[in-house]
């Protein structure tokens, strides 16, 4: 099993690019270790800025630097970066059109046992609702690298969330089929579509395999680009497979599933079920334990998909 967390792929890409591009700057809020950015800080001390435990400061300083021609990458735990600095993201980054790349590390419930202070299960909702902000949740280290290369090359702000722990590979090196802002089709199918992002993608991929063994043809999409979402892929899924199951490590309010549901209900109404974290502080545990507890795993996804197909999508009749 892969032992390299996605955050390490971020550091690797930045180190590859920072040699030629001196405008690349990395900022941390006492988070260089947890962000795996220590090697960058060591190799490029002139392009590294430590701001201390001050996430609002982190984002404002990054915005000021961007406005003066630098390309800042500001890395901090997603829980603090996405909500404590939300106003700085809204005003100094997005509204002021500054090319800051925000790297939310240890996202979702990565810090499972540490309690809700350390969980970021509303970051998609918060940041996607800001005009001008893009939101990306890559699934594995290979895709993270492709995404980072695209983000280094473009010039508008974005938020990228990765988890803390190594995750199983979804892709193989050089075989990501990565197209910026387009969902990646992991498995073609006609009976239902499973759309996942971030760490849920590998579970969705496995669920697709389970379903295949049962004779169910599920399409599986890696929607790492939560905003701007790949509308065409969502609409194709609705038209061609007739029902959609979304899976994410996020609150059900305003996450990727909400965005998919809005598109589908507006343009091509078919049943959509959103699998997400419940509206309560997440239970303590490792990511695996927490995901299993809430059914956010391959068998839970496969089970829901099967129920949707058998009941024409109406698996929650009380709603």
């Amino acid at each position, binding site marked *: 099993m892969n032992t390299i967390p996605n955050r390490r792929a971020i550091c690797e890409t930045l180190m590859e690019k920072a040699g030629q591009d001196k405008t690349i*700057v990395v900022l941390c809020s006492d988070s260089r270790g947890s962000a795996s950015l220590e090697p960058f800080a060591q190799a490029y001390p*002139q*392009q590294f*800025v430590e*701001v*201390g435990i*001050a996430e*609002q*400061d982190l984002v*404002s*300083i*990054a*915005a*000021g*630097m*961007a*406005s*003066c*021609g*630098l390309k*800042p990458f500001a890395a901090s735990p997603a829980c603090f970066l996405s909500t404590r600095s939300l*106003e*700085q993201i809204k*005003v*100094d980054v997005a*509204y*002021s*059109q500054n090319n800051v790349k925000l790297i939310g590390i240890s996202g979702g419930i990565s810090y499972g046992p540490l309690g809700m202070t350390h969980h970021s299960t509303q970051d998609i909702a918060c940041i996607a609702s800001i005009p001008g902000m893009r939101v990306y949740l890559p699934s594995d280290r290979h895709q993270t690298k492709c995404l980072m290369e695209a983000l280094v090359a473009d010039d508008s702000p974005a938020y990228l969330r990765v988890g803390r722990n190594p995750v199983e590979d979804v892709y193989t090196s050089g075989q990501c089929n990565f197209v910026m802002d387009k969902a990646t089709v992991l498995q073609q199918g006609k009976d239902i579509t499973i759309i996942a992002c971030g760490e849920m993608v590998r579970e969705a991929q496995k669920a697709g395999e389970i379903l295949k063994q049962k004779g169910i043809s599920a399409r599986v999409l890696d929607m790492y680009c939560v905003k701007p979402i790949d509308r065409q892929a969502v609409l194709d899924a609705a038209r061609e497979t007739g029902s959609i199951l979304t899976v994410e490590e996020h609150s059900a309010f305003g996450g990727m599933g909400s965005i998919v549901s809005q598109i589908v209900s507006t343009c091509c109404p078919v049943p959509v079920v959103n699998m997400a974290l419940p509206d309560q502080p997440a239970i303590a545990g490792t990511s695996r334990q927490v995901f299993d507890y809430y059914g956010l795993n391959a068998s839970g996804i496969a089970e829901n998909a099967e129920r949707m197909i058998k009941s024409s999508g109406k698996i929650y009749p009380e709603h």
Partner: protein
Amino acid sequence: MNDTELSRKAFLLREQAAGLIYRGKSGHIGSDFSVMDILVTLFYLHLNVSPAQQTDPSRDRFILSKGHTAEALYCILCDKGFFPKEELETFCQFGSKYTGHPNKNINGVEINSGSLGHGLPVGVGMALAGRMQGQPYRVYVVMGDGELAEGSVWEGAMAASHFKLDNLIVIIDRNRLQISGTTESVMNPGDLRSRFESFGWQVWECPGNRIDALDQTISEAKASVGAPALVIANTIKGYGYSAAENQAKWHHKVPSEEEYQQILEELKERRAMIE
């Protein structure tokens, strides 16, 4: 222009700002009149900025952290040729880019402001970028005194001295008033000099509605070495219209027709009195 001419100009610009507020039915007149001399001193005597230099990487950077004094800034930028007067006349009207707080769609504006406590940390980023890129520019941030209750100000203040940013100059429009009353009663900012000195800043203080004093003090602050510079400019809120002076209620009052005429009259008189 010398200090006397600029003092007259500051009163003339107050007339224009009052006109924008009166016609646009929105704005912060007491704050505009308080900060005007600071902005005039900066824009006509210190800032290396002009319409021709808007993309020049070596230009000075100016941040109006107290973004609610947009009218004062707009009148100065307009006077300096950043945009035509007819455009500015759309201030606060439907679809206008000249909103009640500055935004970058307006020529001459470097960062969108209006939410307090952002200017200093953004200025820290600009000053750091200048140093990293070997640019000679300075970063000037104008803050209000009510704004000092924002925690992010102190995060920025700590970072500015940590990074020894002597290319950063902050000026506080110290009028001792905010929307609900005196700064001392709402949230006492205490002894600003010692607070900022304890954060590692070099601190100056001067009368904030006198161009000559501001000019001299800012010149001294620019010479600060190894530490960021703070100028506490002791101002009078509403300066130039006696009925509004030191009155918190004029923070964002839109003058009536009668008041507007009184304002114009008094500003003209005061302008004429300057020798």
